[in-house]
């Protein structure tokens, strides 16, 4: 049994005759943090949903620690892989604890009550996401960053070993983006395997692996240094990239569009 996340020859999408993802193959080692990068609409969410077992592939296979998420029942799958979609309805009147407890359904028996172990697991998940002080606060009274941590806790509370996150920090300010990734790094260090769709290239370079979906839909994977090169990114996004250096850290690929001043200059009559 191979450990970790693996897709092989995967084709998926909305219509079988025109799949969004074609023949994708990639691996993510167990206990590693992977990022998925690509332009909007190229199929990142589709690929993520397929790996999570929420969308059936047209061809190819998905394996999570050797298990096919499409071949197991929904409750078993809920204990294997957690999925955090990009945007989702949030019940503002619910407390964080009650919200996280919702996702314990797959592990609870026929009686619809919360047991001590469910409450303990919920608190543990919230703690792991640095959100335990928020347990009794209403979701409607939280900031974006706080809400995201609670949602992350919910994705994990079922005991999933695999986490798939679709742009978890796109709407957050720089500090919260960094905190989110730090949080994910902490979870991964404790044994979770996480794959994150992100546009934060600076944080992506800090991941253990990178999956890049090119403009043609082809998937390349490997270490971020090998995959997220300025050439590959430029081809993927259709915008030239350069490496920018900052003190004390690896060079970061940065998109090179015209600067604001250059734009202003061009508009002058």
């Amino acid at each position, binding site marked *: 049994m191979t450990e970790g996340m693996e897709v092989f020859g995967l084709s998926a999408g909305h219509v079988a005759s025109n799949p969004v993802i074609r023949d994708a193959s990639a691996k993510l080692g167990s206990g590693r943090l992977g990022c998925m990068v690509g332009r909007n609409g190229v199929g990142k969410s589709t690929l993520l949903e397929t790996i999570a077992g929420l969308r059936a592939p047209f061809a190819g296979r998905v394996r999570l620690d050797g298990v096919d998420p499409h071949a197991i029942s929904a409750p078993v799958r809920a204990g294997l892989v957690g*999925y955090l979609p990009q945007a989702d309805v949030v019940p503002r009147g619910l407390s964080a604890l009650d919200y996280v407890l919702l996702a314990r359904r797959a592990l609870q028996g026929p009686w619809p009550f919360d047991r001590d172990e*469910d409450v303990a697991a919920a608190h543990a998940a919230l703690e792991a996401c640095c959100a335990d002080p928020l347990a009794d606060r209403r979701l409607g009274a939280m900031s974006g960053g706080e809400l995201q941590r609670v949602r992350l806790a919910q994705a994990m509370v079922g005991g999933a070993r695999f986490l798939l996150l679709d742009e978890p920090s796109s709407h957050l300010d720089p500090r919260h983006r960094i905190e989110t990734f730090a949080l994910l790094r902490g979870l991964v260090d404790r044994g979770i395997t996480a794959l994150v769709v992100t546009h934060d290239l600076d944080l992506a370079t800090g991941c253990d692996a990178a999956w890049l979906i090119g403009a043609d839909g082809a998937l390349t994977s490997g270490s971020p240094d090998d995959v997220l090169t300025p050439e590959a990114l430029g081809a993927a996004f259709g915008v030239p990239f350069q490496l920018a250096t900052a003190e004390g850290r690896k060079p970061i690929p940065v998109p090179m569009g015209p600067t604001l001043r250059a734009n202003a200059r061009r508009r002058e009559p």
Partner: protein
Amino acid sequence: MGSEGVRPRDVAVVVGAGVGVLALAFAFALATGPTSVDWGRVLTFDRTWLDARKVWDHRLPRAVAAAITGAALALGGVVFQVLVRNPLASPYILGISAGGSLGAAIALAFGAAFAGPAAFLGCLAAVAVVFVAGNPRGALKSTSLLLAGVIVNATLSAAITFVNLVAAPSDRDRILRWLVGGFPEAFETSSLLSGAMVTASLAVFMFLRSRELNLIAVSDGLAARSGVDVRRMRIEFFLTGSALTAAAVTLAGPIPFVGLVVPHVVRLFLGSDHRLTVPVSVFGGAAFVMVADASAASIWREPLPAGVLTAAIGGPMFLVMLRSADKEKAGLDD
């Protein structure tokens, strides 16, 4: 609740309170009617006294019928509000009661004595139409259901208006009386028994499904991720809500406001966890209709149909609660 989740003792507390409220309402329904009774004679349980017959042979079955109807409508309201994810939904939003009303109107216009069976068939027909129309690709999605319901409601309302206009004047009276919603004077023990069993078992069934109700009330996506077979659950909820509504409408016509107001009031106090709102809505609905029916029979110089009072009480009560209460808790905040 609080920071401990929902435990058996929490449910036991609310069920206990619900039973208490139900008992009070039941006593009120026995004590209240179009005529006055001598309680000394009533409590002898001696059937030779007229007052004893009034309470035990006449008011008792009617109170039971009212309780069954109220419980069914309130629970139907809870279920449909989850299904279409809209707290303003009622069991009638999908046109089921309109189907029942049309069946009853047609039967009464042809001079039938009983509207019940025709109403039941009408409900079934409406359920079938909404299920087929609101179920493209087997998804039974909220918007499709709502849309199908709106169309069915509008079409059937026009048909009912038509039947009303062409019916003979004496039949028109009876049709209008049925449309207000109220109880007949006599009940078959068998229909009360079967109604009670159906409502009670569906209530228990929905209680066991309360976590799925909680999840689907947030979003289908969250439910799917948490291991719920969303498609099957939505069909279960749809059929349960329809069965409850059809049973209630067959028994007493389209009594208004119960399915809309009772779940809301319950949510305003207890929040939206269905492990609490399902049992409390069942007891609350039963109590509400019992009190409304008994009041309606005694409050005016002639007995009024129950529907008049559920609207008169339910409407203003809902407005008052809405103004003063915590909207976010009840899910009414957008």
